[in-house]
C-alpha cells in the first residue's frame, strides 16, 4: 500500500473525527444534546482504557505470556461490577464537589491543600509520559509495518519524523477541542463523542480481524481450539503471585489513571449512566479480548519467527493479502492511540494549569484575582500544558529509542498511578485520613516506584548504575532496587507493586493517625466520607463576610464568563427574595456555592484561595467547626417539611421586606413627584416670564430683543418636551399604548440610535465596539419605540461617560429565545447606592453637573421595554455604566 494512501486515510479519518467533535460541540452550544448524553456514549468513552496497548500489545502479550493479558481486563471488570462499593461514591463526590481531576480530588479532600495537588500532578505527569510515548510508538510501528510488508511498499518513513508529526497533530486536535470551555464541569462533549466513535472503530476493527482469523484462517471454532492447544502458548503456566498481583493492579489503575478519572468522573453527565456502564463496559472489554488468543496463535503459526508479535493484528491480514482488513486494523490502532493521548493530555493539562500555573500566578500577582483576564490565562495555561505533555511524550519516545515491548511500559505506568490508591480510597472512606498522611504516603509510594521500577526499567547504566542494581547503593545489599529488604527472586513488577503500595499505605496510615487535621480538612473529610448521608446544606466554610458582592461578581465573571456568572448571581439573588438587583448578599451559603462553581474551573484549592482573597482570610477554627456541628445536629431535628416552610418563609420575608422598602421609597417619591413637576414646570416659566416682561418694557436694542426672543423660544420648547415626556410616560404606564408591531432589523435600529444620539455632546469622539454579525437579526417588535430606548441609553452614555477616550460597547446575544442587548460605556459607572433608583421618575445622579432633561429618560425606557414584553436593568461590575435590555424575539400582540 503506498505511503501516500496511508497518510491520506489517516488524514481523512482525523477530519471525520474533527467534524464529529465540531458538530457535537455546536449542538451542545444549542443545548440539544439528546442521545449524545446517553449511557451508551458514556460507556463507549470509558473504552479509552483500551489503548493501543490493548489493540496491538495484548496480542504480543498473549504470544509472550499466555493468558496473563486477561488480568488487565478482568481487574477492571471486578471494579465495575462492584460499582456499588466504590465507583458510585467516587462519581457522586466528583459531581457534588465539582472535581476537575484526580489531583483535585486528593487536594480537595485533604483541606484543599495545594501542595498535595502539586505532588499528585507531578506524579501523574511522570507516570503518564511513558504511556503517551507508548501510543506514539505504536503508531510509528504500525506505519513501519506497512512500509516493509508490502511489495509495492515505500521506504519506511523516518520513525522520529513520524512520531513528531503524530504528536503535533494530536496536540493541535486536543487544544482545539479540549480547551474551548473553561469550567471543567461544562465538559467536553465534542471530545467525548469523538472518543465514543473511536471506541466503535477499534472494536469493529479488532473483531473483524478476529473473525477473519477464526473463520477465514483456522476454519471455525472447533479447529481454532485445537490449534490453540497445539500452539506454543499451551505451555503457559499461570503464576499465582503475578496473576493475583496484576488483577489487583489493573483494578487499581482503572480508577487511578488520570484519563479514566477524566471520562468516568469529570465527564460524567448523569450518575445513572454509571449503572449501565457497570456491565456494558466489562462487556466491551470482553469483546475486545475475545479474539486476542486466536490472533496470537495464528500469528505464531503463520508468520516468520522474527515477526514482532505486537504487530500481529496488522501483519497477519497483510501477509494473507487482506489489504482492506489491514487498513481497518490500522485505523483501529490509530483510534486507540489517538483517543488515549487526547484524553490523557486534557486530564494532565487541567491538573497542571489548576495546581501549578494558577497558584503560582496568584502568588506572584495577588491582585490578579480581581484584574486581568483569568479565563484567557487558564485556557492558555492548559494549551501550553497540552503541548508540553505531548512534547514530553515525544521526548521519552525518542530517548527510549522505542524498543521496549509495549506491555512492559504499560504496566510500569500502572504501578505509578496506583500510588494514588491509598490516599484516594482512604480519603473517601476514612475520616481520620489527614493531609500529612496523604502527603507522606504519596511521596513514599512515588519514590519507591521510581527507585524500584521506573528508573531500572531504562536498563542497567541508563539511569541507575549497574553496580547499584546489582549490589545496592554503597554496597548496602538490602537496598537493592529490585530486591528491597532482601526479598529476592520476586518478579520485579510484583516486587515493586508490593513494596511501593505497602510502604505508601503504611506511611499514609501511620502519619494520619499521628497527626491532627486542620478544620478545613475535617470539614472536607466529613463531606467526602458522608457524601450519601443527610447533609444539612453544604458545610459552612465562610462566616458572614464583609465581601462586596460586586467585587465577587467581577471575579466570577473573569473565570466563568459573563453570562454564567451573572446567571449564578441572579439565581442566588432571587433565592434570597431579591427581585430588583443582580447582586445577592454574601451569605455563607452563597459564598460556598460560588466557591464550588469556581472550583469547577480552577480546582478546589485555587478557588478557595481566590474567594478568600475577596472575602478576607477568614480562618475557620475548631470551635467554629463544633458550632457548625451542633447547629447541624439541631437542624436535623426539624422535619424536612418544616425546613422547607422555613425557607419559604424566609424567602417571602425577604420579598416582603424589599417590597416594603420599595413602597416607602415610592411614597416618598410620590410626595416628591408633585413638587418635582412643579419645579420642572416653573423653571422654564421663570425665564419666559422674566424675559417677556423685559420685552414688553420696550426700548431694547434689536439684538437684545432677538436674543431674549430666542431664549423664550428655547424655554417653551423645553416645556413642550417635558409635557410630551410626561404624557408619554402616563400612557406607557397605563398600558394603553398602541404598539405598531412588525419585523425589524436590530442592527438598523442601533444604527439609527447611534446616529440620533450624535447630537449629544457632538464634540466628544466616541469609539463604538459592536458585533455587526450578532446584531443582524430580525425582531418582531415596535421598531420606533425600541429605537427610542437605544437613543436614550446611548445619549446617556454620551452625556455621562467621563473617560478620556470614551468608548461604548454594544453586545447582542440570544439566550433562551430572548435577545439580550448590553450597552456599556467605559466611564465611572453609577454609584451603588443610586443603582436601585435610576429608573424612577425625576431621578438624577447626585453631583451630576448640569443635567439637562427632567430625569424621565430611563423611566420612559423602562416603561417602553416593559410594554415590549422585556426588561431593562442596570448591570453592575462592567467597569462602566452598563444597561441590559432583554426582549422577546417575537412579541405577540396581547390578547385584548
Amino acid at each position, binding site marked *: 500500500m503506498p505511503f501516500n494512501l496511508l497518510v491520506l486515510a489517516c488524514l481523512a479519518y482525523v477530519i471525520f473525527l474533527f467534524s464529529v467533535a465540531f458538530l457535537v460541540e455546536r449542538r451542545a452550544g444549542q443545548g440539544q444534546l439528546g442521545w449524545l448524553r446517553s449511557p451508551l456514549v458514556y460507556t463507549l468513552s470509558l473504552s479509552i482504557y483500551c489503548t493501543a496497548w490493548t489493540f496491538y500489545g495484548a496480542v504480543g502479550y498473549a504470544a509472550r505470556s499466555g493468558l496473563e493479558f486477561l488480568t488487565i481486563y478482568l481487574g477492571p471488570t471486578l471494579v465495575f*461490577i462492584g460499582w456499588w462499593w466504590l465507583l458510585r461514591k467516587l462519581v457522586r463526590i466528583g459531581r457534588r464537589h465539582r472535581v476537575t481531576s484526580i489531583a483535585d480530588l486528593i487536594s480537595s479532600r485533604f483541606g484543599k491543600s495545594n501542595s498535595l495537588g502539586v505532588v499528585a500532578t507531578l506524579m501523574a505527569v511522570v507516570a503518564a509520559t511513558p504511556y503517551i510515548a507508548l501510543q506514539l510508538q505504536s503508531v510509528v510501528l504500525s506505519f513501519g509495518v506497512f512500509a516493509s510488508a508490502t511489495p509495492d511498499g515505500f521506504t519506511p518513513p523516518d520513525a522520529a519524523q513520524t512520531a513528531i508529526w503524530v504528536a503535533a497533530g494530536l496536540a493541535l486536535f486536543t487544544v482545539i477541542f479540549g480547551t474551548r470551555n473553561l469550567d471543567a464541569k461544562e465538559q467536553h462533549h465534542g471530545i467525548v463523542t469523538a472518543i465514543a466513535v473511536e471506541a466503535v472503530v477499534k472494536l469493529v476493527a479488532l473483531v473483524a480481524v478476529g473473525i477473519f482469523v477464526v473463520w477465514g484462517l483456522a476454519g471455525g471454532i472447533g479447529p481454532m481450539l485445537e490449534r490453540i*492447544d497445539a500452539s506454543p502458548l*499451551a505451555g503457559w503456566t*499461570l503464576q499465582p503471585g503475578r496473576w493475583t498481583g496484576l*488483577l489487583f493492579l489493573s483494578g487499581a489503575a482503572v480508577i487511578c489513571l488520570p484519563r479514566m478519572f477524566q471520562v468516568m468522573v469529570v465527564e460524567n453527565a448523569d450518575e445513572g449512566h454509571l449503572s449501565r456502564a457497570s456491565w456494558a463496559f466489562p462487556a466491551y472489554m*470482553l469483546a475486545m479480548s475475545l479474539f486476542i488468543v486466536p490472533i496470537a496463535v495464528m500469528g505464531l503459526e503463520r508468520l516468520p519467527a522474527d515477526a514482532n508479535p505486537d504487530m500481529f493484528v496488522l501483519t497477519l491480514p497483510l501477509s494473507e493479502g487482506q489489504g482492506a482488513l489491514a487498513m481497518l486494523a490500522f485505523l483501529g490502532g490509530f483510534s486507540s492511540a489517538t483517543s488515549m493521548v487526547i484524553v490523557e493530555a486534557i486530564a494532565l493539562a487541567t491538573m497542571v494549569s489548576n495546581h501549578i500555573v494558577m497558584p503560582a500566578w496568584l502568588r506572584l500577582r495577588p491582585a490578579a484575582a480581581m484584574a486581568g483576564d483569568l479565563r484567557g490565562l487558564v485556557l492558555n495555561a492548559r494549551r501550553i500544558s497540552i503541548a508540553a505533555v505531548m512534547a514530553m511524550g515525544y521526548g521519552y519516545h525518542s530517548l527510549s529509542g522505542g524498543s521496549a515491548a509495549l506491555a512492559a511500559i504499560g504496566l510500569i505506568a500502572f504501578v505509578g498511578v496506583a500510588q494514588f490508591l491509598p490516599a484516594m480510597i482512604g480519603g473517601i472512606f476514612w475520616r481520620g485520613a489527614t493531609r500529612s498522611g496523604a502527603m507522606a504516603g504519596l511521596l513514599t509510594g512515588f519514590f519507591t516506584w521510581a527507585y524500584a521500577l521506573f528508573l531500572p526499567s531504562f536498563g542497567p547504566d541508563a539511569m541507575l548504575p549497574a553496580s547499584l542494581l546489582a549490589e545496592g547503593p554503597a554496597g548496602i545489599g538490602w537496598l537493592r532496587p529490585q530486591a528491597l529488604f532482601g526479598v529476592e527472586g520476586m518478579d520485579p513488577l510484583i516486587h515493586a507493586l508490593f513494596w511501593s503500595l505497602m510502604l505508601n499505605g503504611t506511611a499514609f496510615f501511620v502519619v494520619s493517625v499521628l497527626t491532627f487535621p486542620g478544620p478545613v480538612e475535617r470539614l472536607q473529610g466529613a463531606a467526602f466520607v458522608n457524601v450519601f448521608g443527610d447533609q444539612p446544606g453544604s458545610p459552612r466554610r465562610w462566616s458572614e463576610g464583609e465581601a462586596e458582592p460586586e467585587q465577587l461578581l467581577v471575579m466570577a465573571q473573569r473565570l466563568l464568563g459573563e453570562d454564567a456568572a451573572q446567571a449564578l448571581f441572579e439565581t442566588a439573588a432571587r433565592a434570597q427574595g431579591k427581585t430588583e438587583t443582580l447582586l445577592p448578599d454574601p451569605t455563607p451559603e452563597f459564598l460556598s456555592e460560588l466557591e464550588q462553581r469556581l472550583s469547577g474551573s480552577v480546582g478546589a484549592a485555587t478557588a478557595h484561595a481566590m474567594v478568600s482573597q475577596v472575602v478576607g482570610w477568614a480562618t475557620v477554627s475548631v470551635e467554629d467547626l463544633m458550632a457548625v456541628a451542633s447547629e447541624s445536629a439541631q437542624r*436535623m431535628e426539624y422535619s424536612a417539611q418544616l425546613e422547607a416552610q422555613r425557607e419559604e418563609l424566609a424567602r417571602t420575608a425577604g420579598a416582603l421586606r424589599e417590597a416594603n422598602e420599595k413602597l416607602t421609597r415610592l411614597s416618598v417619591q410620590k410626595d416628591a413627584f408633585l413638587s418635582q413637576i412643579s419645579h420642572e414646570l416653573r423653571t422654564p416659566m421663570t425665564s419666559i416670564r422674566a424675559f417677556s416682561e423685559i420685552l414688553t418694557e420696550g426700548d431694547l436694542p434689536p439684538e437684545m430683543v432677538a436674543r431674549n426672543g430666542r431664549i423664550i423660544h428655547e424655554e417653551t420648547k423645553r416645556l413642550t418636551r417635558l409635557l410630551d415626556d410626561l404624557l408619554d410616560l402616563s400612557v406607557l404606564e397605563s398600558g394603553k399604548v398602541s404598539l405598531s408591531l412588525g419585523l425589524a432589523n436590530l442592527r438598523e435600529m442601533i444604527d439609527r440610535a447611534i446616529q440620533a444620539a450624535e447630537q449629544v455632546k457632538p464634540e466628544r469622539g466616541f469609539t463604538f465596539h459592536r458585533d455587526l454579525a450578532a446584531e443582524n437579526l430580525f425582531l418582531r417588535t415596535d421598531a420606533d419605540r425600541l429605537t427610542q430606548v437605544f437613543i436614550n441609553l446611548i445619549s446617556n452614555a454620551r452625556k455621562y461617560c467621563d473617560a478620556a477616550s470614551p468608548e461604548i460597547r454594544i453586545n447582542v446575544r440570544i439566550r433562551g429565545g430572548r435577545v439580550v442587548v448590553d450597552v456599556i460605556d467605559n466611564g465611572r459607572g453609577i454609584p451603588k447606592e443610586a443603582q436601585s433608583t435610576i429608573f424612577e421618575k425625576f431621578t438624577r445622579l447626585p453631583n451630576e453637573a448640569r443635567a439637562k432633561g427632567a430625569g424621565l429618560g430611563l423611566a420612559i425606557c423602562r416603561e417602553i421595554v416593559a410594554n415590549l414584553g422585556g426588561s431593562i436593568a442596570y448591570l453592575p461590575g462592567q467597569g462602566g455604566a452598563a444597561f441590559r435590555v432583554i426582549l422577546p424575539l417575537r412579541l405577540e400582540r396581547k390578547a385584548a
Partner: protein
Amino acid sequence: MRRPRRPMFLGRIPYRRRRLRDAARLLPVFGAFLFILPALWSPPGQGQRLLSGDVVYFFIAWAILVLVAAAFAPGLSAAEDEEEDD
C-alpha cells in the same frame, strides 16, 4: 450526631431493594473468586488440562458476571435516590 428515626421493618419492595444491594456488593467478591480459582488448579499443558479449556472457562465466567451485573443494574439505579443504610 443523632440520626433521624428509621422504621425497624421495611415493606416488601424496599426489602427487596436492600437485598439486591447486598447481592450487588457480593458480586465482585464472587467474581474475584472465579478469576483467582485457576491459580489454585494444577498448571495446564501437563496432560490433564488444555489451554483451550482455560480460555473457554475465563470467557464463560466473564460473560456470566456481565449478565448478572446487567440484571442487577436497573433495580440498583432505581434505588439510588433512597437513603443509605450504611
